[in-house]
């Protein structure tokens, strides 16, 4: 028995380097940037393609993968937690440092809180036992301290001692 197909209810997103990707309204809703597009009265979801000049097809599909997986696994049972952890690990394994940073940019541009939080934590985990040199390189930050200034900060673990008197 053939059913009549449901009318198309997806949002069309066009990454900068690939074909249009269709996403469900539920997924699109989590991308604040897209959401504000859709909420605009002049927008007709079924016909308009939303161009995303700052997002590659790879980044977009990664973000959609993440949202899809996590929206389907909201349960708190231990085995679900376990498989979610596994998914997250696999998700990050495929990302080299540069790709991770770029994905962070894309998630920031699309303003997807869930993915952004996840990636920020991932970057934090990545840098937390690394040297200051590594961190500078990773973030492309130039050291603007003099040798003495840097030594000074390294020596004093605390930031400031103003206002502290000894007993």
């Amino acid at each position, binding site marked *: 028995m053939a059913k009549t197909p449901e009318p198309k209810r997806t949002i069309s997103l066009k990454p900068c380097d690939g074909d249009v990707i269709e996403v469900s309204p539920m997924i699109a809703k989590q991308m604040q940037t897209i959401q504000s597009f859709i909420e605009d009265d002049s927008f007709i979801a079924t016909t308009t393609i939303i161009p995303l000049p700052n997002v590659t097809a790879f980044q977009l599909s990664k973000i959609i993968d993440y949202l899809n997986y996590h929206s389907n696994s909201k349960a708190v049972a231990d085995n679900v937690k376990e498989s979610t952890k596994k998914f997250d690990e696999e998700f990050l394994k495929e990302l080299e440092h540069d790709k991770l940073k770029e994905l962070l940019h894309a998630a920031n541009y699309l303003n997807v809180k869930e993915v952004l939080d996840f990636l920020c934590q991932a970057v*934090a985990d990545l840098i937390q036992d690394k040297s200051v040199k590594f961190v500078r390189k990773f973030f492309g930050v130039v050291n603007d301290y003099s040798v003495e200034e840097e030594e000074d900060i390294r020596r004093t673990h605390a930031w400031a001692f103003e206002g502290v008197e000894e007993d």
Partner: protein
Amino acid sequence: MEIPAIDQPGLSDDLIMEILSWLPVIYLLQFRCVCKSWKSLISLPSFVKLHLERSLKNVNLFLTLNDLNENAVSLMCCDKRSFLEYPSSVISDHGGGVPLKDKYWVIGSCNGLICLHGSTFEDGEFEVAEYDCGEYWFRFWNPTLGLRSKKSPLLCVDLDHFDAIECGFGYDKASDTYKVVAILSNTSAKEDSERTQVKVYTLGDHCWRDIQPFPAFPYNFEKQGRFLSGTINTLALQNFSPGYNLGKVSIDQLVIVSLDLGKETYQQFLLPDVVNEAPIHNPTLVVLMDCLCLSYDYKTTHFVLWQMKEYGIEKSWTQVVNISYEHLQIQRFPFPLPGPRFYSSMPLCVSENGDVLMLIDDQQYEMILYNMRDNKVQHADILKNRFQIFAEDYVESLVLPW
């Protein structure tokens, strides 16, 4: 069609803040030397708050160890899980930790700040007869940053009039301030109005302020108010009058008085509705699992713990533990001195999953782990008769103690 090249600028300050907010304090201290802008970013009040919000999920413990042999007090922070699993690896035979001068005592822990209470008396009690005015002060300490405040302005207490002091330390979110509350009480005062006085010090201020008198009589076996969701909570007696026998208190005579640190007004909560309860001993108010909990000794045979599941909702009192000392493998013998004191077990902390309750029994200063799920009891014998231990939940934060 040509693919437009994406200009990839460095990460914005907002994003860097988001990333750094997930890092433990120790790394943030190191990363201050990445560059000047990171250093100032890490010290921004908005960053300190964001970081605190994240850190509140990683609860550690702050321990006060009173070494019974050396008569010395030391303080340490530790991971809650390792403490519950291997208490004797966290607390060595020598204690460890930072020694605390004997005129200080810990009042509370909040958002990474520890409030220390100092007085002109060594043990903080009104025992030295030659003074007629007691001087008290407070210091705020962030152990993770290694920063400590100056002394607060002195709180002078007329010892002819007041015979006990109970303090609390907490945070008011609305005004973004930390406050110390000191409740002074006088057991022999004839008039209700003379019986208590409540003073408040706001961190950063230059003076103590009087607020409305306490609406009941402080029952200060604990001498420490408990901070929870913007309020300081203490046990108190209803209908107190001079000559009241503090040794024989039943549960329906006690209430919780809760002081809202923002509004500086009081609320009272009834304790669990227990019918025909015999006098209870050492009723103690603590915060466990982010809830107010009441523990007491029942008929000197049982340890009982109640939890107020929803703050301020009297109907939400739930008995979570009612266990005999026999099962806890404690041989209870009568307290050798007369007076309202009995040996009892005090709750120290609960594991993250809510299963394991750590008790310290003050008869032999033994640590006991009680698994509330499978009823199993385990003794950490190695620390027996070595330390009197107090524990507070503690988070590592960048909050400045001034």
